[in-house]
């Protein structure tokens, strides 16, 4: 399996810059997820790696070889599309073996490879069916099988689960994770779903407007985001953001009726009166701590195992999402003292950059 190196990769359509210089190192056998809101360029970047879009600037290396001008079929990659892109007039077996015919493989070789891939994916009973006779999940498995038989150096997945219903999506997510373990393949996976990113990735690349915002392991991005965008994008429910003011060694929260909390320990000193944004994940309130906020519950969401309270102070517009341990007795209108460890609070400057 090969790794990839992206050096200052750019893509422009006329005057419009879509990918604005991406540097990235992807290790062999790594599962990398490109995630970001729609229009961030994640699919374009994947298609540039695939060779479906030309590269306007920078260098792309796959397995140490510069492939900017190498045809898609010669890059040692295989791609799984959101629409599955199966050939509707061919059976599952023909779909999976089609590419091998043109790679000069013999009939017995093709049969062996297709059967092996079918066994990995549990497609054995479906081999003579046409795509229209398959469910969405089965089609997706065939599409993955078609990629596997080519024994590529790198697998590319373009939002492969977006067309599936929620239950199947969870199921296929687990299958893809298992597949990665079995095949020990390098995988680049594009999704807008941060849960898919969190659960599948060894490394997440968060993209926004054609730039990499942050790269790191899922938990690194969750615990230690570089900026407000990454902090807000990763994690569900979303992180709470409150504007805050440094005053007398404490953080004063004007949106919460000037309640205050101790200033989290930082490497840098913040000047008196500095405006910052405070980021608090809903689950920091689960464990309690020395700081606390007094709020009034507006809505309670009972998920069975978990409870989320949506609460605010008086008539303020700022609504807080709070994960509550043992919250089954909570009712709207009740007062809630949400306590947390101030060390787990994140601070961002007015440009959205993390203050450490």
């Amino acid at each position: 399996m090969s790794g990839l190196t992206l050096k200052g990769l750019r893509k422009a359509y006329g005057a419009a810059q879509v990918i604005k210089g991406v540097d990235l190192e992807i290790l062999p056998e790594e599962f990398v997820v490109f995630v970001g809101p729609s229009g961030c360029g994640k699919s374009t970047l994947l298609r540039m790696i695939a060779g479906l879009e030309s590269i306007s600037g920078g260098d792309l290396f796959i397995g140490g070889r510069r492939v900017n001008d190498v045809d898609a079929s010669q890059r040692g990659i295989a791609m799984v599309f959101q629409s599955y892109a199966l050939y509707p007039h061919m059976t599952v077996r023909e779909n999976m073996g089609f590419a091998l015919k043109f790679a000069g493989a013999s009939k017995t070789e093709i049969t062996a490879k297709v059967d092996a891939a079918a066994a990995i994916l549990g497609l054995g009973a479906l081999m003579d069916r046409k795509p229209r006779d398959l469910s969405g999940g089965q089609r997706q498995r065939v599409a993955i099988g078609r990629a596997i038989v080519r024994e590529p150096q790198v697998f590319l997945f373009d939002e492969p689960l977006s067309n599936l219903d929620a239950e199947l999506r969870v199921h296929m997510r687990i299958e893809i994770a298992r597949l990665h373990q079995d095949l020990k393949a390098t995988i680049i996976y594009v999704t807008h779903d941060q849960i898919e990113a969190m659960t599948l990735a060894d490394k997440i690349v968060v993209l926004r407007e054609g730039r990499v915002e942050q790269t790191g392991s899922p938990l690194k991005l969750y615990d230690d985001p570089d900026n407000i965008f990454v902090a807000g994008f990763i994690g569900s429910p979303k992180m709470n953001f409150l504007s805050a003011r440094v005053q007398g060694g404490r953080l004063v929260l004007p949106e919460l009726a000037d309640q205050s909390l101790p200033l989290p320990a930082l490497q840098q000193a913040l000047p008196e009166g500095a405006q910052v944004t405070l980021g608090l994940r809903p689950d920091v309130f689960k464990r309690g701590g020395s700081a606390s906020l007094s709020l009034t519950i507006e809505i309670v969401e009972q998920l069975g195992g978990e409870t989320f309270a949506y609460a605010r102070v008086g008539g303020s517009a700022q609504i807080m999402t709070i994960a509550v341990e043992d919250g089954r007795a909570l009712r709207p209108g009740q007062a809630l003292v949400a306590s947390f460890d101030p060390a787990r609070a994140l601070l961002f400057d007015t440009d959205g950059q993390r203050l450490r």
Partner: protein
Amino acid sequence: MSNAESRRGNLAGWAFIAPAMVLLGLFMVYPIFWSLWMSFQTGKGLNFKFGGLANIIRLTKDPVFQHALSNTMIFLVVQVPVMIVMALLFAVALNNPALKGRAILRTAIFLPCVTSLVAYSVLFKSMFAVDGVVNHTLMALHVISAPIGWMVEPFWAKVLIILAITWRWTGYNMVFYLAALQNIDPSMYEAARIDGVPAWARFTRITIPMLRPVILFTTVLSTIGTLQLFDEVNTITASAGNGGMPADSTLTLSLYIYNLLFKFVPNYGYAATVSWLIVLIVAVLSWIQFQVAKER
């Protein structure tokens, strides 16, 4: 809804479609059965009597009919495949987003089928005259050394008719293919590209099978159209008011039916027999085409 109500609803429904049903019955269903009955009648004009299979026996002995049949079959066998292949190639070429001026080219290729028949026939007659622009151009390019008698030599007259109907109907068929091509998921071609499927194989192994239903549809339609070919052979290769010239070399079945009814002493029975033969040929050929195109 009660029974009485549903009966009233049914009645109202029938009342609404009654005018159309009456007109269809009067001007379509009735004549169809009348012509079938007529095909067993012999005699001239309105003076006819039941003749059993006499008309069918006459078909087997009628050299003019056999000439018309063979002409029609030549047109069918040569023109339909050429046109279908050309329409397909044009459609694939014009579906390529990289091609500049696609909209203009599409319109240009489609335009002939909405052009007035008489206007284009007059132009073709002038262009393909012995001293016309086509011969002049071909001679200037040294493709030919002497002018071709497009409308005087039986072979070239057939070529001219094939050229004319191909020119007229290729764009029409192309539009069906273009519409079908635009329904093919582009990621299928991208998948094939990544998988190293060469361009020719993408065309023959993906595009053609995906277009199979449309190809069948256009082939059946074109077959029917060519079997009923009348317009061009009654205008372009007509002289002194008689179509199918020279020497009946472009006489088609439809034109022969027309002649039987309106040029010669009218023979309704025999003309009806030839008409029903066209129906039979269309049915058989369409059945064969459906069998060939059936998904295996």
